């Protein structure tokens, strides 16, 4: 079986989301205290995070603090992303 780029991307995404959820649970009290809609970008290795009002505001801070190859998880305080049209 050949492992494709898509397989690797899915595996990376699964891992990052699973680890991210663990950190969100551990830091729940701190994260819940943030303003609604805050975008929280969590480094899945250390659990440290940066925040911003938008993803575009926060993502350069994430890269600057954790490095260009860091794997992270996006948490939104009391907010969710809906994709009505589905994927694939």
């Amino acid at each position: 079986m050949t492992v494709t780029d898509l397989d690797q991307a899915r595996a990376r995404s699964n891992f990052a989301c699973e680890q991210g959820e663990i950190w969100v649970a551990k830091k729940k009290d701190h994260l819940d205290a943030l303003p609604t809609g805050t975008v929280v970008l969590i480094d899945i290795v250390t659990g440290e995070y940066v925040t911003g009002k938008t993803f575009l505001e926060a993502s350069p801070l994430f890269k600057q603090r954790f490095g260009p190859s860091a794997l992270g998880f996006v948490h939104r305080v009391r907010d969710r992303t809906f994709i009505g049209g589905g994927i694939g």
Partner: protein
Amino acid sequence: MAKIIGSVDELGRPVVRIDVPGHDSLLAVVDTGFNRALMLQHDQAITLGFAFTGLNEYVELGTSSISKVERATGRIEWLGRAIAVDAFVSAEPPATHRPDTARALLGTELLQDCLLLVDFSSRLVEIETQD
């Protein structure tokens, strides 16, 4: 007042063409059930020069199921301006039964301060700034 003209495609979806500076344009379905900016397929994000951020996120689909996506950033021409935009990127394999149709989704974040008109009877789509 800037305006984008699109159409209702043969599958009944409102679609618009989005220019990407330095790259091919992309055809996107206007998805009013999508509350962010842009959703791309993995290969499409690469082709259009989007930079993967290493960040990943859960999203809720129309079926109420949860999916995981990667996040990337890039630039598009939108209503007469080149803007930075963040995209959700799906790593699901492209649908082979309809490879030539619009694969990207355009969400309501890009429609803030705009009027969206979809005239299904004349198959016309208009997105217009309301500044």
